[in-house]
């Protein structure tokens, strides 16, 4: 029991470290890029949340922000870049185009980036206001702390499967509704409500 307790706490600490040192890879394709600039610019200053420095190499980034419309032609590039990122990695779909395709429903645009890569947080809006983006980042940080990011779940399941030496099978992950909006971060480490 004691060992579990220690490892559990250790994982929390690691996640806590992860969520405040996000290195983002902005996959900027379209209009939303303008607002992404605003987010990075002085007024909204995403640096305050530890996602300071955009890394333009996927191998140095653990957070991919998909900013703008993804077309079918763009799809393979997106997928490839995601595969190049080191695990654990997280994805934010910035804007309604990246989330669902938005009002571009046609032969060229992809109905949401999650057709190609698993998305952890979706930001609505066309484009979203910078405030929404910061909110999404906080949302993602809580998710990371809870260890519920897609790739975190995959890693956990793999580890579990290895321990059991059995089949590796991952249940499809659902995004939890945000329950504790203003919770102090340590308390957010406690398992919160919502479906498992």
């Amino acid at each position, binding site marked *: 029991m004691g060992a579990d307790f220690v490892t559990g706490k250790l994982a929390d600490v690691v996640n806590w470290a992860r969520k405040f040192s996000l290195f983002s890879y902005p*996959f*900027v*394709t*379209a*209009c939303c*890029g*303008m*607002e992404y*600039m*605003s987010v990075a*610019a*002085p*007024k909204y200053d995403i640096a305050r949340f530890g996602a300071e420095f955009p890394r*333009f190499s996927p191998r140095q980034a653990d957070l991919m922000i998909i*900013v*703008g*419309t993804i*077309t079918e*032609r*763009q799809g393979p*590039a*997106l997928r490839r*870049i995601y595969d190049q990122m080191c695990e654990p990695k997280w994805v934010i779909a910035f804007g309604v185009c990246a989330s669902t395709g938005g*009002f*571009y429903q*046609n*032969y*060229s*645009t992809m109905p949401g980036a999650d057709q190609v890569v698993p998305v952890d947080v979706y930001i609505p809006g*066309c*484009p979203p*206001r910078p405030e929404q983006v910061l909110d999404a980042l906080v949302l993602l940080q809580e998710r990371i702390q809870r260890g519920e990011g897609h790739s975190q779940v995959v890693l956990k399941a793999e580890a579990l499967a290895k321990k059991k030496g059995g089949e590796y099978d991952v249940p499809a992950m659902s995004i939890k509704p945000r329950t504790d909006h203003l919770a102090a971060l340590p308390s957010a480490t406690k398992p919160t409500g919502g479906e498992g």
Partner: protein
Amino acid sequence: MDNTLAPPQTRRVVMGIQEPQDFDAPELPTEPLPLNMGPSHPAMHGTVRMVLEVEGEKISSADVQIGYLHRCFEKESEFATWTQVFPYTDRLNYISPMLNNVGYAMAVEKLLGITNQIPERAQYIRVIVGEMSRITDHMTCLGASAMELGAFTVFLYMLKAREWLFELIEEVCGARLTVSYLRIGGCAWDLPEGFAEKLRSILERSKGVLAEVSTLLDRNRIFRDRLDGIGVVTQQDCLQYGITGPVARSTGLAYDVRKDAPYLVYDRFDFDVPVGSVGDNFDRYAVRVEEMKQSMRILEQALQQIQPGPVAVNDPRIILPAKSETYNSIEAMIAHFKIIMDGIHVPPGEVYSYTEAGNGELGFYLVSDGTGRPWKCRVRPPCFAATAILPELLKGLFIADIVPTFGLMNMIGGECDR
């Protein structure tokens, strides 16, 4: 007139390096190496892919591949009513959406034959918001380019100033970026209270920012070295490729739709068309800086001349009735319904309407079959033409030169790929 900072002959010899071949050391034989930039590359503005063939640092051939942001503007327009196209135009050149609004609204009005019925105030408003958009356009372009050249401060300064304009635009139309503020036949609504004062103060502060930026860049050795004499476009190229706007003007080709075919009320303002002399990257930079100053001149004059009045034509078949009427009388309800659902009925015909957008001549070629939606809604994207010359332009340059050259062409995915 020549607004560039210095005559070319003094400009071409910074560090005594003129041509790339000066770097070609004969004892370094290299075989051609294919190199791929993009589609996701920090300097590719997201959505362009360049398949280069380099010999050492030198580019021997470049294949510029666009289309990674093809969002089917035309197909979507053919399935939307004339009014529903506005949101799509916002997202063409998304760093100057108001200018696209203006271009499209004027095209449809030309097709409807109501161009001269647009109230004067509406025309002034269009000029004002348009020029504001032009300033944000150039600020974004220069800021981003400077950042790609390592001048991150300039990026932050420019975005600070752009943020002021965005907030004012938000006060006007409720959106920072994707505005959809204009309507066929006028504007959605009038300017907010105290608009003039706010804009004036913003202009003052923005001038300060521009001054700061020019002190940072204009005589900055690193910056100049990467711009001067690089990526030279000739006037002949512009005519051949249909390049307009700042890129064309940087070559000394003084073509500006606002002067050559004045629309709206542009003929009432006193402003200059800045032109360059060399047509290199630095000229493109300088022309854009000067254009922002000219836009500010226009804005100041417009704020003085604008008079109160209606902001849309008085035609129940084009403009929606008041909501109170819509909810309380069957007549207005029907009118509202028909305009929203069936769309404004534009008589059959074809028209090509052109305005001066951030990147040059933004043309709309509309074909109407008499129903409520366009049969064809073609947009003639200025930066498509400018991007088309890149393969020629990049030959013989260094890889490092791609960044400023591409950046100052100001290729905008939404507009180029549509």
